[in-house]
């Protein structure tokens, strides 16, 4: 019962937040913070809870939410990142705050639902809910090319998820033909696998895979991400990078292998090679980016690529590594996006060569911290994620590991190249440093990265059963 309260709490509160903007200017922000804080605390004790009722019995659609090892970790990540981005929004968002915070809470419900849904239609229901609020967030509060980016984001991901829903229907009907019962329950539908022909299975795999491949960007399908990230307001891109990509990753990690175990095994070589390509490809492209946010966007594609490869290895180490990578990547890229937002507020541009002209000690030291965290420096969460993922991948394939390790070097290369141009070099003067208000979310993310770097059992504990 707890899990439905958790999932629907933000949605229920969002109209309140929207209406509160009429009463007093600052109210929506405080209300949103308290709601997300409440959800975060609630998410800590939601382990193991499950609700299962009928929603549309005649079609076999049930309202089935469940929190086990993996989704528990993901739920905590969601509420944590959401809290951080709401805190960070106060400095970034000045007008139409009521609508902004209401949309954020709506997104939170969608994401929480995705990580806990067991029924495929319910999963798709929450999957699609996230799209519209993010579209509006990019559209109304984004930067110059926001209209193009918002439209591209909406249509691109929508089309991907549409293919996925057709895959679910396909499985649904074959289940009905074989067993005569209507159900969308994930843990029932995999029984269809040994009755269906190879070509059908490949088609089903492809359809469902497309939905996840667009969201956890796998290279050929990633071009919506840099535009969406660059144009979204920085708290928005924190959620985009931090949580939306994880939905794709979670799908690949959880939904696809349970729905089609053997086919997933057969196709895992393809998935791994796609993952490796996206790691290396986006690392190389990130190297030449002139726009700070675009560089971080490509680096998040490359990190997610590592997670995808680790998922494809299907080893227990690999899965743990993938989840760890997703968690730490959310924190690190969240931090980097907030920093780039801070730079944007000070210099009104994202060009790396421009923002290096002035001195901001705390801001640049945090940037250095973020750069090293994302290049997997030991002692920070990125390192452990990489170690686990590499070991997991190595168990299955030796060759791909060379590319992954080389891309880790390239990551360090372009991150330091960026740091060199921003932090080092001639300074023309001072600019006012991070205010206390800006520091709070950053401090949250930094402690998260450090904590996960030094005490990995915190996150690996609940993942024992994986």
């Amino acid at each position, binding site marked *: 019962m707890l899990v439905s309260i958790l999932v629907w709490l933000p949605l229920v509160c969002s109209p309140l937040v929207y209406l509160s903007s009429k009463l007093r200017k600052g109210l929506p922000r405080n209300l949103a913070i308290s709601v997300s804080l409440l959800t975060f605390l609630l998410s800590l004790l939601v382990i193991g809870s499950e609700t299962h009722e009928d929603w549309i019995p005649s079609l076999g659609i049930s309202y089935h939410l469940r929190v086990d090892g993996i989704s528990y970790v993901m739920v905590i990540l969601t509420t944590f990142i959401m809290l951080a981005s709401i805190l960070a929004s106060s400095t970034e968002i000045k007008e139409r705050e009521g609508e902004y915070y209401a949309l954020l809470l709506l997104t939170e419900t969608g994401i929480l639902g995705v990580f806990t849904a067991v029924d495929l239609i319910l999963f798709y229901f929450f999957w699609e809910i996230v799209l519209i609020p993010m579209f509006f967030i990019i559209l109304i509060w984004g930067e110059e090319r926001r209209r193009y980016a918002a439209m591209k984001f909406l249509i691109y991901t929508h089309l991907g998820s549409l293919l996925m829903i057709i895959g679910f229907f396909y499985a649904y009907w074959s289940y009905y033909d074989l067993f005569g019962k209507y159900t969308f329950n994930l843990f029932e539908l995999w029984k269809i696998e040994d009755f269906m022909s190879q070509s059908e299975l490949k088609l089903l795999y492809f359809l469902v895979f497309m939905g996840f491949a667009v969201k956890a960007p796998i*290279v050929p399908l990633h071009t919506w991400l840099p535009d969406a990230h660059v144009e979204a307001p920085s708290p928005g891109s924190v959620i985009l990078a931090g949580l939306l990509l994880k939905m794709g990753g979670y799908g690949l990690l959880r939904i696809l292998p349970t729905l089609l175990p053997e086919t997933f095994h057969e196709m895992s070589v393809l998935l791994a090679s796609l993952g490796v390509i996206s790691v290396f490809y986006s690392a*190389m*492209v990130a190297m*030449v980016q002139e726009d700070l946010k675009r560089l971080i966007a490509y680096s998040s594609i490359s990190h997610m690529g590592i997670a995808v490869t680790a998922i494809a290895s299907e080893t227990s180490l690999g899965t743990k590594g993938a989840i760890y990578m997703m968690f730490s990547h959310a924190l690190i890229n969240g931090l980097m996006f907030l920093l780039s937002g801070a730079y944007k507020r000070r210099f009104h541009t994202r060009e790396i060569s421009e923002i290096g002209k002035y001195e901001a000690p705390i801001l640049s030291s945090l940037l250095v911290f973020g750069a090293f965290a994302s290049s997997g420096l*030991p002692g920070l969460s990125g390192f452990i994620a990489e170690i686990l993922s590499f070991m997991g991948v190595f168990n299955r394939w030796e060759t791909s590991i060379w590319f992954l390790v080389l891309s880790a070097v390239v990551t*360090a290369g372009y991150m330091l190249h960026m740091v060199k141009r921003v932090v*080092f*070099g001639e300074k023309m003067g001072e600019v006012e440093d991070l205010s206390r208000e800006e520091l709070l979310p950053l401090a949250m993310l930094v402690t998260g990265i450090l904590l996960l770097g030094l005490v990995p059992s915190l996150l690996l504990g609940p993942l024992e059963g994986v």
Partner: protein
Amino acid sequence: MNLEILLILTPAFPLLSFPLSLFFGKRTPGQGAVFGILSSLASLITSTYLFFFAGKPISFEKEWIPGFTSGLYLDELSSVMLMIVSGISLLVNVYSLGYMHGEEGLPRYYGELSLFTGSMLVLVLAKDFLILFVSWELVGLCSYLLIGFWYKREEVAKAAKKAFVVTRFGDSFMLLGIILMYVSNGTLDLVEINSHAREMSSLLIALLLFSGAIGKSAQVPLLGWLWDAMEGPTTVSCLIHSATMVKAGVYLVARLFPYFSESGALPVVAYFGAFTAIVSATMALVEWDIKRVLAFSTISQLGYMFLALGVGSYESSISHLISHSSFKALLFLGAGSVIHAVGSRDMRSMGGLLKAMPITSTGMLIGVLSLSGIPPFSGYFSKEAVMHSVMENGNILLYSIGTLTAFLTAFYSLRMWILTFLGPTKKEIKESPSVMTLPIIVLMVSTATLGLFIHSGGGTPYPLLLAIAGLILSYRYHNAFLRAGPLSTLLSKRYFLDELYDLIGNCFFSAGKALDLLDRQGIDGTVNWISSSTLNIGDKIRRLQTGEIQLYLLLIVIGALVLLIMTW
């Protein structure tokens, strides 16, 4: 039980002083120096206690990442290293009181210095590969931060980035080796690996680990970053880039010596070491930057240590490591005080400082003599031990390279000393403050006395003879190699290594640009093309509705006709 606590405390002190000096440094005297000095002093005391009184080996274990056990381990080798690291770190901390006086951002400097000392101590004490690799990278981070201390200057930024990326390149191969080790042997524990070396050893893993050592100890081919690292403060160059960090590679091979010998990788180590020694020695002949000369000599002495390990003599390599730490630190601190006085690193603006800086010049002289391997000093005994073990190994090529390098070492070190201290005095300067000369004196004493502890086998005299010949020749024509035409340009261009590195960097960049173009035009292009083509189709179709009734009626009739046709 209290030994284990002592074991943990040694690295804990400096690691603790990192946040302290970073955040509270501003308010304390010396901008955080207090924390630096106290913490290195404390760890020196504990390591001396551990060295003399503790029953070795001591080990401490705890499960860090679920599924992997990691911890600290102390034996003779690591306790010696403990002594060296904490000792030199103390001297450098004291020295930088004077050298870094008046610089802004000192709390950051002292914080990073103690972070470095702490992670170096952890590296030396690491019991398993995870802790080793964590401290390995942390040490790399500190070297990046400290090289980049004067971040305002452009070449400093380049040097720091280059240092980190090149060492990271080596480390990534080491990471591969570690993962391969875990996957094939199931354990990362160094002690266990050494004890089961026979059945666990594999040449590939050994070479991968060695490539990590090459990256960190700046051996061929990854040596391009060390002389650029001289952009950092001299105290940093002394502590990190000569005495401790660059020795991590040698320490790694020494720590896994049984594993390396079983896997048959030692000859490779030997040849890499010898080749690096000779190449870097030649580069030093034409160098005008005093710190760069010392950097080349560090690389070549490291080559010696790898050579000693390669030929199978573990003791001589460690002894050379110990003696090198003291006389190279002495040379660097001496060079530091000269730079501090003259204000530039270029030897052409120095000269005739003998009378003005008596302590520094005598200290540098002792260092030079010990470096060239002239008796009473420790350099002679340790280098003698190395050459003796090479001779015993019977490999003539290695032996001749060794002796030739000895000659070159003597030549360029005396040349450096002459150019700085003899000749016409160009500037009126005075001796450095006592806080800088005190460490120099301490190191002079240690360089002189250390020789007694090293028992060398008393091998062939050739290295000594050639060293003396080198000294004499260098006294006479110290700039000979500058006028050697094409050879001198080759040397001054450092075998075009810098150009090679830039080339690699650029080709990565151009590949990146090509892929970015592909991304913007290619993939993004197709996406935009699809959307614009659908829009065009939409537009073409839209034009069908001209609003003219006749056309509409025609359409309806055609539709009805099509239906009729469908009936057949």
